[in-house]
């Protein structure tokens, strides 16, 4: 019999360039925050599961599950690193949820950690391209931004999206990021700034792309009926759903739709017994501006080819009809790949608790959705959280 699961504590580092901190230090910082918030000892944690895309290629360090447990002084607690490229964090959350829901464990730490700035940017580009199909995409010179650029070119062709509308995604995310002390970028930008930034992969410019960040995030999961032991404001995990699709764009039914997102969203809403209208805010995977547009459509908030109209109307800002990425998203908030999926959940939790600082609190937020994508859509995880 499945148990209801709640998030009882959260922690997150600032996302950005942490020159003096390695993978273990970042894990420590986020983990300690969560443990202190829950008022427990680390030793109470029964199982650690965290997302990390590529300790191996970024730092030459694999076997990071046990390593993190060791550094936190938690051996012999079982510790597992999961990998699903940029969806590693979301998938770790799904695994942690299963561990508690199944009755296997009563207190689980779910984390996401990535240390990316120890390598040169061109090396990071190469490592990230491993999230695509190596043999039939990366091998021919496709980059990660390049694959999303292929989607963007086709989307613009099919639906008439203009670069200046696409730029609004970044402008909004920087605006939200300016209010988030943990964001990688806290500067506000204009459409002009986006359109005058150099191309990374046409039609995507530098300001259409998320940065390369270091960072970590952590949440503690417990059965709902035990949650009050740790917090007065447990946040209920209404649903978590994960789906997969082809790694490459070659055999997609429609390159402008991430079917994995569609499937995960359908499953999640059914599991949560909620509708799109019940959602007060969303954290979506905007690794590139075009990805945020696709996400709102594929999650079912808009019909295909319609989402960008929300941006023309400013409806995705805090205070709008559907606030999107109130922490600045990946674009301004930062993208420490394996940590992102968990960081999104941390933001939703803060919003539902009414603790989002800097003026970015969504009034009366009851239900929030987090959407985490791996690669160009081969993995998608959709999580729905609720205050009640």
């Amino acid at each position: 019999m499945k148990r209801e699961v709640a998030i009882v504590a959260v922690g997150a580092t600032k996302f950005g360039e942490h020159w003096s901190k390695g993978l273990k230090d970042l894990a420590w910082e986020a983990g300690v925050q969560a443990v202190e918030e829950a008022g427990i000892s680390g030793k109470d944690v029964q199982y650690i599961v965290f997302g990390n895309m590529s300790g191996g290629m970024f730092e030459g360090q694999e076997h990071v599950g046990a390593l993190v447990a060791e550094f936190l002084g938690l051996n012999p607690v079982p510790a597992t690193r999961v990998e699903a490229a940029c969806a590693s964090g979301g998938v770790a959350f799904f695994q942690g949820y299963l561990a508690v829901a199944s009755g296997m464990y009563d207190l689980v730490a779910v984390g996401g950690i990535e240390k990316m700035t120890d390598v040169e940017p061109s090396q990071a580009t190469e490592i990230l391209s491993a999230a695509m199909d190596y043999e039939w995409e990366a091998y021919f010179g496709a980059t990660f931004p390049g694959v999303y650029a292929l989607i963007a070119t086709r989307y613009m062709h099919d639906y008439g999206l203009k670069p200046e509308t696409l730029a609004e995604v970044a402008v909004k995310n920087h605006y939200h990021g300016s209010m988030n002390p943990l964001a990688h970028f806290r500067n506000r930008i204009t459409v002009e700034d986006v359109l005058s930034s150099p191309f990374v992969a046409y039609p995507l410019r530098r300001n259409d792309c998320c940065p390369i960040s270091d960072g970590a995030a952590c949440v503690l999961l417990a059965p709902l009926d035990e949650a009050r032991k740790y917090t007065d404001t447990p946040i209920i995990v209404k649903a978590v759903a994960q789906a997969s699709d082809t790694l490459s764009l070659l055999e997609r039914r429609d390159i402008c739709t991430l079917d994995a997102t569609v499937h995960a969203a359908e499953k999640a809403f059914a599991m949560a017994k909620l509708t799109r209208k019940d959602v007060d805010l969303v954290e979506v995977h905007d690794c590139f501006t075009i990805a945020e547009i696709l996400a709102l459509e594929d999650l079912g908030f808009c019909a295909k080819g319609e989402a960008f109209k929300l941006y023309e109307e400013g409806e995705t800002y805090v205070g709008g009809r559907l606030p999107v990425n109130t922490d600045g998203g990946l674009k301004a908030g930062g993208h420490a790949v394996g940590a992102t999926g968990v960081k999104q959940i941390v933001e939703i939790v803060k919003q539902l608790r009414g603790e989002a600082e800097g003026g970015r609190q969504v009034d009366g937020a009851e239900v929030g959705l987090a959407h985490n994508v791996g690669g160009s859509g081969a993995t998608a995880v959709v999580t729905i959280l609720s205050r009640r």
Partner: protein
Amino acid sequence: MSVSGVPRHWRSLRERYRLLGTYCENCKTSFFPPKKICPKCRRKGRTREVEFSGRGRVFSYTVIHVGSKTFEEYTPYIIGLIELQEGPRVLSQIVDCKPEDVHIGMMVEACFRKLFEQEDGGIISYGFKFRPVDDSWAEYYDRLLADRAMVEKT
């Protein structure tokens, strides 16, 4: 591309050199990348290797300005998602074409190019890329043969 060893380059070498995919005799469908089993017919399928014509249209494209380490020296270069005449889509670079000239729907044909060179005297990887189709060469014969007739008259 330094992370992968030589055998890995070699395993898909024929497919890269000749643009080989899979054809299912049962459902008369072509597939790329190559398959062990027909995704439609499953075990009922009768699959065989097929060499594609190499002709197709640009389904989407991008111009890479920031390349990964292996491809840095080639920037800016065009990447196209190509829909082959036979149906499947493949991804590769579009060469002999200026970035401002590429467009969705453009007819392209496969050509044989260098994909990259491994560092430090490692192997050279070759494979298919695409270039705009230009059948104008047929007209050159009319000109050439007319010129020949002129010369013979004088």
